[in-house]
């Protein structure tokens, strides 16, 4: 079988077989017990040529409704931000994308320096002392943070705000299930509570739960409802019992909001997909992980450090490897090996392009546009308020009809509606989480609002 990916010709194959001193390709596999050797072809579809593959994939794409042809008001952990064109042009340089992990630093200065720059940017955004080279996603980053905390202070309980992204909590539960570390959820202030319907972590309940056994408190800000938590207050609570504070923060929001580092968090983690990475149907994403200095040598994953070469010139290497699986094996801080380097490069490119002003502008537009949407929706009285605290990019409302019914109706108008909170938060049944990024124009928003209004008016009442 001739393949454009396999350069060896039949003639060359024969010459090589004879150098190797075997008679046939089969003989190369004689170490495999006879009964294991497949006697027939794998049951896979017939091979396609490039052109046929493209047509095939086009057919599949036509079964999707993408976020180009449809206007996206869905967030809930993955965000439809503007990505400057230059990003993809950089990450498409073969020298970046076809390289392996930079084990040989002398021919990997490109990746190494870009990660060093990425680490710096993440540290800057989060107000932390150091960041690693990336983790799989925000959810696994939270899991790694919890592990770090528990190992650091030897305590076995994690308190987590229920307002943290449910996907993150699920990954945390699974990951810690057999670790001996338990997780407790702390509720958020909601409607029943007449004094406080802020949607932020219930501080009284937190006080009730916290103890000398608490390894860390994990909160998210802006939380899953888009609402800003009082990181400082929670950090005080944590400090009182010697627990660490893990803050899950959206990196775009850090263009305007105080950094978790400045507010007392010990570890900041989160999802950096919004920084120049497409949503990709949920992957690859980009987990960031940043810490204050005491925790640097306990970080999971790759870390790049600055050093000098034999001629005294600045250069970069993978460092603090004694933490890692290939050296420490079962005692490693984490098992992570392959991470998300190319996504980190995209984030570094994005942050370089946006720069100080641009990131602030993006964050501000997200605020302006989400606030505008929120008020426009409320004004028409087809949705009602659920929480009271200020939010970022995303907010919760309760529409007069069921969110899923609205979403279905919006789809026919080429709009991808918000996230129905009912399944993950039965206590918020019928509530709808709507995300509005800088990518949405006023026209798109007005259109969305008016369609929501008319759908609600014509629809089945949400009880």
């Amino acid at each position: 079988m001739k393949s454009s990916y396999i350069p060896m010709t039949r003639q060359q194959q024969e010459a090589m077989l004879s150098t190797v001193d075997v008679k046939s390709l089969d003989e190369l596999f004689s170490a495999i017990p006879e009964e294991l050797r497949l006697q027939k072809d794998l049951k896979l579809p017939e091979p396609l040529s490039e052109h046929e593959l493209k047509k095939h994939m086009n057919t599949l794409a036509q079964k999707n409704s993408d976020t180009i042809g449809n206007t996206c008001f869905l967030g809930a952990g993955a965000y439809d931000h503007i990505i400057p064109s230059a990003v993809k042009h950089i990450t498409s340089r073969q020298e970046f994308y076809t390289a392996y992990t930079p084990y040989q630093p002398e021919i990997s200065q490109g990746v190494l320096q870009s990660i060093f720059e990425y680490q710096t940017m993440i540290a800057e955004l989060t107000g932390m002392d150091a960041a690693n080279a990336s983790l799989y996603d925000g959810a696994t980053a939270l899991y790694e943070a919890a592990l770090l905390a528990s190992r650091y202070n030897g305590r076995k309980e994690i308190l987590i705000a229920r307002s943290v992204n449910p996907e993150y909590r699920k990954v945390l539960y699974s990951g810690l299930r057999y670790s001996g570390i338990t997780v407790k959820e702390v509720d958020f202030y909601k409607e029943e509570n007449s004094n406080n319907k802020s949607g932020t972590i219930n501080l009284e309940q937190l006080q009730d739960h916290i103890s000398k056994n608490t390894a860390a408190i994990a909160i998210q800000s802006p939380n899953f409802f888009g609402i800003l938590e009082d990181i400082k207050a929670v950090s005080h609570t944590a400090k009182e019992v010697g627990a660490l504070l893990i803050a899950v923060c959206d990196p775009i929001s850090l263009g305007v909001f105080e950094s978790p580092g400045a507010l007392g968090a010990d570890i900041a983690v989160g999802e950096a997909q919004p920084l120049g990475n497409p949503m990709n149907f949920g992957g690859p994403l980009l987990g960031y992980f940043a810490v204050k200095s005491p925790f640097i040598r306990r970080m999971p994953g790759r870390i790049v450090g600055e050093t000098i070469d034999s001629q005294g010139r600045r250069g970069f290497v993978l460092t603090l490897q004694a933490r890692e699986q290939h050296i420490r094996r079962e005692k490693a801080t984490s098992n992570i090996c392959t991470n998300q380097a190319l996504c980190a490069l995209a984030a570094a490119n994005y942050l370089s392009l946006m720069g100080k002003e641009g990131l602030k502008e993006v964050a501000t537009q997200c605020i302006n546009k989400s606030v505008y949407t929120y008020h426009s929706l409320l004004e028409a009285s087809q949705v009602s308020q659920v929480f009271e605290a200020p939010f970022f990019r995303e907010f919760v409302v309760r529409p007069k009809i069921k969110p899923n019914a609205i979403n279905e109706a919006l789809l026919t108008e080429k709009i991808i509606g918000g996230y129905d909170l009912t399944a993950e938060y039965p206590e918020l049944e019928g509530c709808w989480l709507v995300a509005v990024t800088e990518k949405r124009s006023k026209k798109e928003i007005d259109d969305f609002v008016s369609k929501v209004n008319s759908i609600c008016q014509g629809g089945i009442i949400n009880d």
Partner: protein
Amino acid sequence: MIRDEKLIFEKSVEGRIGYSLPANDVPEVDLEVVYPGDMLRKTAPQLPEVSEVDVIRHYTNLSKRNYGVDSGFYPLGSCTMKYNPKINEDIASMEGLAQMHPLQNPQTAQGNLEILYNMDKYLSEILGMERVTLQPAAGAQGEMTGLMIIKAYHMHRLDSKRVKIIVPDSSHGTNPASAALAGFEVVHIPSDERGCVDINALEDILDDTVAGLMLTNPNTLGLFEEDILKISRMVHDCGGLLYYDGANMNAIMGIARPGDMGFDIAHVNLHKTFSTPHGGGGPGSGPIGVVKELVPFLPVPVIEKVDDYYTLDYDRPLSIGKVKSFYGNFGVILRAYSYIRTMGSQGLKAASQTAVLNANYIRKRLEDLYDIPHNRICMHEFVLSAQRQAKNGVTALDIAKNLLDKGIHPPTIYFPLIVQEAMMIEPTETESPETLDNFIEIMRDLAIKAQENPESLKNAPKETYVSRLDEVKAARTPVLRWKK
């Protein structure tokens, strides 16, 4: 090479911009009013202020200091650095597939779900497994997922005494690390003189506290575990499960299947075997397949097909839960899907056959000048030892650095740990005989120089952007971020 020593931060000029955003077209919010107290940032993050051309040039220049598969030969053992076909990149960039939100109504994502569903089917067939989850983002996460399934399986059987996972001393570091994270005690077993699992040692360890065995096959010496059927029987007989670390699947696609060998769980690295590029360190994708008995424990969601409609099934009471957000690294899966669809079963088999032939060819042509601890027919890679050269002061590291000057990426060195001065060579099938010959000539030449003039090999690399870097300094006084 033009030296441009500056970091992007050092190129920053106040007031310069590199972005172009739509003008704000809605009423402006007064941030101070909406976010009172400590909420707003007092000092802006020190991000660079540069223009688009600055960014493009900066990173383009950085790219020139990096070596990828498209630059040349990359025989980095265990990493399967095969050529990444360009069409796969195009497919992964198709807007209709990539520009999708993961939480869209499944009815609007039938194309993507069909791809995931079929990918499960294809990989199940290749691995000889019942079903596959595509959720793990890399091999290590596949391992962790698999080990959690092993744990869940035993727990479900109320067999809580199974606390040990056995790994060979030649295993990859992620194996014991994953086992520990999944709450197991790790037991190492030695390799025998043939480089395979020491059956007697295994015998001694096996008892009812053993939850399972993790094995790479071919193992990290590039050798097929000939006793695999015996091993799997032994482990099964004592009630344990077998985990297959599929990093080395490139040797046996279409030739033999982990499922048929008796493995209960198997991962595969799409970023190795299935030609998805490694991105300078990721993203990867590490799907795992399981036998029928273990299907209930797979992470949620599982993609199901009902009357030509694809759904996400979250209602799986025995599931270990979620190991990652959403459904895995879809962008990577797309590339692997394209690869499988263009190769077909014969193509995959030819890839493995050629990969194995290439490795053996290099082995044969270096065996006179280098020590090869287990010198017999190997699979897709083999490990040689630079011990002979080290006696003259030329270490595996020196040889690696000299290869850099010849425009070749060095093999993996000092792994597996059980071979002194190890160099693990994996040519893959996408390298031509001429490329192999060039590498062989250079390696032979280095062996001769190591004999005749060892000093001449101590100062490499000389042709690279930087010379040998001080890794000790980096670790002792870590500088992990730029500061003004």
